[in-house]
């Protein structure tokens, strides 16, 4: 749907907006480049283009022609969602006026204000949005690196890796062992590993009920823990075992060729191993010199502007911003704040105070959905939580079903917001 603000804005406001455009709006249109076409970058590109009605030249750089969402990829694993329904292309983003370039961004020259593409081309910008998502920390799980991902998939960036993991689980021997090596904080999608365990258990309970699941986790506690544990006990009794740091869960090594997992010196033979390594900002953030020692890109809480460069904003999972979880919902929320600020700086449109929010739904079993969420605002140093809520243990089945249906409504809502 196309929104034409002129049709309902008074002429006085329109005149103000046009006359107050700052110097940047000289002979050429101001240029915004967005690196990464996921929930953060896709939203930012689309909103800047849509709301500026052509006054800003927006380029989106994204290597994939079809984007597969991480959210709901666990539901695909569990058989609740079609693989094709995870995929979205860039046609509608392009139709809002975004110049979509399918290429890799391989460098940023911050002095010249250009982005280098793998093709050799350089794309100039007045404002740059960096939204590359995550990369894995090399060596965080000894024995594993990306070259082993076909033997031990991470399946943590959606797409074919999730298909591979699903295939491995489906063809696992009867009574086999599925091991998940869970990541340390901070990582993408805090309830993601717990939801994945739930979906794998759901799948195995039907096709391979004597199979077992072992979670090796370096964290003391994890998101929605009470809800997941209650759900596993109810739906998949005796199937899931978790080894936390008190029993050596932080001391794990894998041997992909042998399909072995070594936990605190004890060798465990496994049939399927899902390694979710420690994470950091997507590589381009580091190449652009935007990351801290921990590998994340620190930003100012009021507008997600990089603390390293006034003309660059970092969105979503790659950013280090404070209390917001690394989620597609958060990235989408942050993108709208950034779009409003960038458009204001480049065209003189009104800049409104930042407000952020997030809700994460998870599915535990058929019609058993739970959620956690919060609203956020900028604090002095970082983004802070204002109010929060979480589903309760012991909720009745109708409410859980409604929460699940709501999550489907949300999925359709957010992908329509970004790609629709």
């Amino acid at each position, binding site marked *: *749907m196309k929104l034409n603000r002129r049709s309902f804005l008074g002429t006085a406001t329109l005149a103000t907006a046009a006359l107050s455009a700052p110097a940047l709006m000289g002979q050429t249109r101001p240029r915004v480049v967005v690196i990464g076409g996921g929930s953060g970058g896709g939203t930012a590109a689309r909103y800047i283009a849509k709301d500026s009605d052509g006054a800003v030249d927006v380029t989106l750089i994204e290597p994939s022609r079809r984007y597969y969402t991480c959210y709901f990829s666990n539901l695909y694993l569990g058989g609740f969602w079609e693989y094709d329904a995870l995929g979205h292309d860039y046609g509608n983003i392009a139709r809002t006026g975004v110049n979509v370039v399918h290429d890799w961004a391989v460098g940023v020259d911050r002095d010249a204000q250009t982005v280098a593409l793998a093709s050799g081309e350089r794309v100039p910008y007045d404002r740059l949005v960096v939204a590359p998502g995550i990369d894995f920390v090399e060596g965080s799980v000894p024995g594993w690196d990306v070259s082993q991902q076909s033997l031990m998939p991470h399946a943590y960036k959606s797409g074919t890796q999730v298909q591979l993991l699903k295939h491995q689980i489906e063809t696992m021997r009867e009574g086999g062992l599925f091991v998940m090596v869970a990541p340390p904080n901070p990582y993408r999608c805090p309830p993601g590993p717990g939801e994945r365990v739930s979906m794998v258990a759901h799948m195995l309970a039907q096709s391979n009920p004597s199979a077992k699941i072992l979670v090796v986790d370096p964290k003391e506690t994890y998101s929605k823990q009470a809800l997941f544990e209650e759900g596993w006990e109810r739906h998949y009794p005796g199937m899931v075992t978790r080894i936390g740091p008190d029993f050596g869960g932080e001391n794990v090594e894998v041997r992909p060729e042998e399909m072995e997992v070594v936990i605190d010196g004890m060798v465990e033979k496994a049939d399927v191993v899902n390694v979710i390594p420690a994470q950091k900002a997507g590589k381009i953030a580091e190449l652009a010199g935007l990351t801290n020692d921990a590998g994340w890109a620190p930003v100012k809480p009021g507008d997600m502007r990089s603390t390293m460069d006034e003309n660059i904003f970092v969105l979503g999972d790659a950013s280090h911003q404070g209390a917001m979880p690394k989620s597609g919902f958060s990235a989408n929320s942050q993108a709208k704040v950034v779009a409003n600020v960038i458009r204001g700086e480049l065209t003189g449109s009104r800049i409104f105070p930042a407000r952020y929010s997030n809700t994460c739904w998870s599915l535990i079993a058929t019609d058993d959905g739970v*959620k956690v*969420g919060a609203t956020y605002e900028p604090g002095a140093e970082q983004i802070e939580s204002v*109010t929060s809520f979480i589903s309760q243990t012991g909720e009745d089945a109708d409410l859980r079903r409604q929460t699940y249906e709501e999550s489907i409504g949300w999925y359709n809502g*957010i992908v329509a917001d970004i790609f629709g």
Partner: protein
Amino acid sequence: MRAFLQRFLFIGALVVPMELAAQAIPIGDAVAGAEVYRRECASCHQIGEDAQHRIGPHLNRIFDRGAGSHDDFRYSEALLRQGRDGLRWDLRRLDAYIENPRALVSGTRMSYRGLSDPARRADLIAYMRAYSDQPQNIPEAAPTARGREVNLSAEILAIEGDIEYGEYLSSECTTCHQRSGDHAGIPGIVGWPEEDFVVAMHAYKQKLRPHEVMQSVAQRLDDEEIAALAAYFLALGRE
């Protein structure tokens, strides 16, 4: 509703001392309420001995019952949803529903324009209450338990929304509620009458309406921002 609460329950008090709460405070005139019921409700709802579901469910023991909780009546999905979220028919919510059904439960099938006169609503509720358990001598029981007063003054309802600000604020809504108005799992919010939108958001803000995500979103919206959103989503519906 606000006037009703002030007139019949307590004047401006947010915390009711036990002594006062324990008194049986008259809601309204049940005899006059019988006539209001006959004119306004009886064509669809039965009440009293042998009452059955008709177009609407029977209304015996409505007080403190969960919304949409008769298993043998087919409710709208909207009412069932509110019931699952925890809506119970206490005095405050019944009053709000009778005043403007759609404002409390958007999408209810009850095609009733609402009863704006607070005195007549009070009489009606007093009448209906005779067919429910009457716990007026148990101060903590739900029908006489009172939360904070919802105070939507005429000034709040008259605020003219800043559409451009509403457009910005709306981006928080559209992560879930689709701009196209499509709704499945999450209700549509495009093209609502502004007043319904404002009342609904204040109802979430005051936690009168259940639903944690909406309560949390509404919590930090001030009167101007709610008006801005109402104006924007109405305009969007006219596009």
